[in-house]
Each structure stands twice: as C-alpha cells, then as structure tokens.
C-alpha cells in the first residue's frame, strides 16, 4: 500500500465522523503491526471487519471502545446504545471506510458485508501480508484504530 491508498482509507473515517458528529478525528502516524497477518493488539473493544476481494485482497477493520461507539450513537439520535447497536455502528463505520475507498480503488474493490466481533479477535482470516498497517485515530477523548491488510491479488496469503 502506498500513501494514496492509505489516504483513501483514512478519508472514509474522517468523512464518517465529520458528517455525523461535526468533529474530525485526529489521524496518528500509521505503523506496521507484527501480528502474523491478523488483527492484533490494536484491535480492542468492538471491531467491524470488511473483507476485500478483486484486484486487491485482504481486509479493512475499524476498532473502537464501547464508550466511543455509545457516544456516537447518542449524537446520531439513537436512544438504544446497547451492545447490538454498538456492534452495528462498528460495522457501519467499517463499511463506510471500505465503501468510500472505492472512489480511489475503483469498482473492482469488492467489499463484503461487515463481520463484527467484540473483545478478542476471532474468525478473521490471515491477511495477505505478514504485517498489517495500523492507523491510529483520536476522536474527542477516545482512541480507535483502522487496521488494514491488503495486497494485490497476485500475492499469496502469508
């Protein structure tokens, strides 16, 4: 992934928070996480995962603590801030990030419906690269992260 690819991923998260909360998240310095091609220590709280297929293959995750998600739900006018809706929101943010990235990657950047898990990582296949890219986000007092493991389809799974 190059800088333009990362920017395309970040843009979706910025758009989501700015549009829905009027507060743009601060984007930290991206880094590589050595977690064997899976989402690792940066994935806490509730995580929405979008599988990517087509010329690019892998996944895009958005992970945030329950408190951040509950806060955003309230700003969206949602009275029910229970676990079902925080999971729904994590999936919707991940969907927005991946879907908006098609402006950059094109229509063959095929995205799955969200898979959401809370707490420890489960069920996500290894990405195509041994090290995922972690993009830290700070929104108000909360920290969240986007974790991306993408490669062109010619690269076989790690």
């Amino acid at each position, binding site marked *: 992934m190059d800088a333009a690819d990362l920017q395309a991923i970040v843009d*979706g998260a910025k*758009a*989501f928070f700015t*549009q*829905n909360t009027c507060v743009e998240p601060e984007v930290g310095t991206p880094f590589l996480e050595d977690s064997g091609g899976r989402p690792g220590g940066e994935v806490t709280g509730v995580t929405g995962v979008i599988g990517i297929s087509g010329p690019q293959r892998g996944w895009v995750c958005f992970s945030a603590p329950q408190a951040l998600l509950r806060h955003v*739900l309230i700003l*969206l*006018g*949602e009275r029910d801030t229970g676990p*079902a*809706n925080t999971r*729904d*929101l994590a*999936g*919707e943010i991940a*969907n*927005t990030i*991946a*879907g*908006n*990235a*098609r*402006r950059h990657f*094109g*229509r063959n*950047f095929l*995205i*799955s*419906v969200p898979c959401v898990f809370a707490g420890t990582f489960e069920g996500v296949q290894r990405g195509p690269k041994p090290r995922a890219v972690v993009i830290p986000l700070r929104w108000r007092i909360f920290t969240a992260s986007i974790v991306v493991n993408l490669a062109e389809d010619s690269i076989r799974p790690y």
Partner: protein
Amino acid sequence: MRLLIVDDSNIIRSRIARALRDRSYQTVGLARSGEEALAIFRATLPDAVTMDLTMPGMDGIECIRRLMRLRPDTRILVVSALADKATAIEALKAGARGFLQKPFGEDELRDAMTTLME
C-alpha cells in the same frame, strides 16, 4: 408518501425513518436484505424506497431490478457507502432515480427525497 427503508444496519434504518418522519413520509416497512425488501414491497406497495447496496444475500442492485419488474414507477433512492461512479451509474441503469452517498446528513437525505419525488 409510503416509504420502505432497506439497509442491513438497524442504525441507518432508524436514522432514515426519524429524519423523514416529519416530512409526510410514512414508513411502511424496514428490511435488512433484498429478499426481505421484496416480501415487504409486495405486501405494502410503497411509493418510495431507500435502498442500501451492500447487504447479505441479494444485493441492492439486483433488488432494484426486481422491484422495477414488480412496479416500474417506484421511486428508489440508493443510500450507499460505495463511492465509485460506475456503481452509481449501474444503480441508475437498474432503475434507481437517485443516489445518496454515505455518510449523509439529514438535510441531504431530505433534499434527495424531495428531488426523488418531484
């Protein structure tokens, strides 16, 4: 106006219903997938539909095609995170009359619905 809202996210369905409640839209159905949308559509025959594209099972484009076969004058607004022009064009060719990209503001949604119904 009788409205069917189709989206696999409960939050988005609720948000759309809330935003349009005071604009003389009566939400007659909420669907989480294309299959559910078709069943509710047959039972309620709404005037307008908001349609997500990425959903489990039947996707939004295929659902639009089937709704058009059932009732070609149905007004369909696509509400989707998919941001590429080719997808928007495909949705419009399938029969949608408008495309609103997520994330959206409530005013944008209301404006899009007003345009849809003109």
